[in-house]
């Protein structure tokens, strides 16, 4: 019996086939419908934005990998996710050069400095967004009407701003293309600053102003369910966030309905759905144990509402998740699993 080689390997000899690139690739699949809908809504400007941020993320990842003498890590798809998510959180007419900067910043300060995938404390896409939020406060709150005519043939004027230049004023352009009544404000801002309510149906379908990929709550929910069904996402994280949001906003709404919107509105407006489903659930920045996940989710949900109601911004999910990420190591330290057969703690006599 000829035997050329024998593989020596210690047990276990079988393996669940789902590995990191498989999971990450499926997250990309889950994001594709959201990107497609964003392009349908806002046109080629968003398509360009997604491509630019993704390329910026991939390029930065590769650059730091090359600097550190590490093997090519683009195949794990995680930087692709960062790029796509980042674009989805930006306004549709966001200048491309700023988008590229956000991508570079996200990967560089959000991920590479910590040592790459698995070692980052914060969600890289949100780090990128926070960077441009601080750097370009006007551009990041300049919204574009959805479904404007000619969106497949022309860019939003601000999209093609030359690098390092301030984007042009779009108010005039908006008046030309907009359907009636577009005020250039998101439902959250409308509610907060002008006390105007938006219909739940519009929130569900996404026919409202907002970041490129956050507007259709139902589509995001479906895409998230795909990942949950394939056991590639911890469903408890979005679930606890939703509970945190509903409870906090429910209490605040009962106390003062004028200041705090009802829980349903809170759930389906703004970036909450996208953030809860695709960013807070990022495995790297979330706690390990079910108890930890509960604290983490409730914390993010509660903070989101508090920032939305009491903060100076109309949106709070981004900082809530970043704070949740920051708290994760602490939560992990306090929520170690209880050992099977653990002896009851001996009282010190």
């Amino acid at each position, binding site marked *: 019996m000829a035997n050329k*080689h024998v593989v020596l390997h210690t*047990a*276990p*000899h*079988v*393996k669940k086939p789902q*590995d990191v*690139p498989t999971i990450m690739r499926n997250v990309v699949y889950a994001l594709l419908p959201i990107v497609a809908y964003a392009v349908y809504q806002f046109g080629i400007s968003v398509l360009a934005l997604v491509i630019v941020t993704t390329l910026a993320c991939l390029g930065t990842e590769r650059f730091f990998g090359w600097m550190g003498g590490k093997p090519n890590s683009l195949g794990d798809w995680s930087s692709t996710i960062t790029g796509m998510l980042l674009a989805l959180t930006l306004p549709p007419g966001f200048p491309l050069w700023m988008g590229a900067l956000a991508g570079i910043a996200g990967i560089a300060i959000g991920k590479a400095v910590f040592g790459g995938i698995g070692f980052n404390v914060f969600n890289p896409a949100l780090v990128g967004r926070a960077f441009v939020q601080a750097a370009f406060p006007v551009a990041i709150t300049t919204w574009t009407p959805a479904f404007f005519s000619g969106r497949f043939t022309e860019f939003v004027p601000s999209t093609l701003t030359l690098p390092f230049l301030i984007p042009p004023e779009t108010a005039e352009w908006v008046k030309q293309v907009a359907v009636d009544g577009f005020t250039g404000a998101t439902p959250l801002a409308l509610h907060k600053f002008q006390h105007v309510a938006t219909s739940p149906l519009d929130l569900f379908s996404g026919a409202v102003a907002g970041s490129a990929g956050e507007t259709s709550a139902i589509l995001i929910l479906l895409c998230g369910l795909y990942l949950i069904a394939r056991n590639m996402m911890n469903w408890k994280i979005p679930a606890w966030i939703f509970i945190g949001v509903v409870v906090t906003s429910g209490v605040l709404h009962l106390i003062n309905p004028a200041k705090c919107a009802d829980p349903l509105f809170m759930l389906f407006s703004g970036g909450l759905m996208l953030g809860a489903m695709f960013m807070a659930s990022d495995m790297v920045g979330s706690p*390990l144990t079910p108890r930890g996940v509960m604290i983490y989710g409730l914390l993010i949900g509660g903070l989101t509402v508090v920032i939305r109601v009491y903060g100076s911004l109309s949106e709070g999910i981004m900082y809530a998740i970043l704070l949740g990420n920051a708290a994760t190591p602490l939560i*992990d330290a306090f929520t170690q699993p209880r050992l099977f057969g653990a002896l009851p703690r001996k009282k010190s006599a």
Partner: protein
Amino acid sequence: MLALFDKLRKGRFSHGIHPHYHKEATQGKAIKRLAFPPRLIVPVMQHIGRPAKPIVKVGEEVVRGQVIAEADGFLSVPVHAPATGIVRDIGLMASAAGPRVLSIVIDVYKAASQQVLYGEPVEPETLTRAELIQRVQATGLAGLGGAAFPSHVKLKIPASKAAHTLVVNGCECEPYLTCDHRVMLEQPQDLLQGIRYALRITGAERAIVGIEDNKADAAAALKAALRPDDRITVELVETKYPQGAEKMLLKSLLGVEVPEGGLPIDLGIVVNNVGTLAQLGRLLPSGEGLIERVVTITGYNVDMPKAGNYRVPIGTPVRFILEQMGVEADHEKVILGGPMMGASLASLDVPITKGTSGVLVFQGRTFMDGENTAAVYPCIKCGRCVDACPMHLNPAQMGWLAGKRQYGLMETEFHLKSCFECGCCSFVCPSNIPLVQYFRIAKAVNRELQERAA
């Protein structure tokens, strides 16, 4: 409400995994006998404890069933000649675990009838418990489930303790293996007899046979063979790996948790494997020794039409078994035991021992149960290992510590010693981090440091 909750929890433990079981290939095949190999390699150390001492000399003729190595103290069992032949050599031979072990090599007589002529039949009912324990030791029986702990030691209840329940482990949760399943189906009388003896020896009031619910036919066969006066019940438990780990089985059957660092007897429970007790039921009255066992021989991605369950003489070399199976092609991996906890072999001249439940041949790069590259990625903190660990450890945390070689901290802060190496963490890890392998290294290093300090 509480009763309903109890009902839902019944038969279950928390965490664990659901691998592909691949039992279809062999579970329907009746146990057959494998031919005697021309040469047997019988290690004197097939159990946990002290090695047996050879009492035969090179050139001496041995008869099937004769004692060839005697027990060295209480924590040891004798070894019997698995076939009639001549002792060719007594020396260090390759073992599945790696290091060479003292073995008695027997050239089997081709013309011998291979009748078992040794053994003094007794009526176990007439003996005292102490005499019975001696008898069990004389059979050379050691746990056939894999750990190979001497059976008489397990059945002897320490003076300070008392046993009330005997749990019989018929889970066979390892993928591929079906030998226990077949034994339960084909030898229910032997098994029940063994349980009755064990009840008598331990003084336990009752016995519970726990069987995974994918082997309902085995449970039915046992129930049908029960006598009205038997204090034995048969219960189905969830099919989930590692249901067959004794701590998990006790949780599923009785809802109890063996305390950290403790043994089932601390709770008044004795656990035995079905294969062991089926042998006990046969060997105790006949006074014979353990000279053969049932082994599942199968493979993955390998052409093996004769795959099945075989009664194999102890000491049969794996090479001979593969030849009998007609496996000649190049193969990737040969495993003794199950794929979750078994050892992969460096040499095919390793023999079947008392603790060997399976011989698995894995072929091709797909042995990882899917198109999986073995590339290792950094931990992405997904928490799957935490959700899989049946001991509720934190494998991710221990993995990071192992990466930093902080083995001491793993033991003092994260209960490394509670890990029984089931491999669930490595199985689920999407980053392909060899977690349980790290833990084995950590345990070995800690053990060595402690021995050095002592």
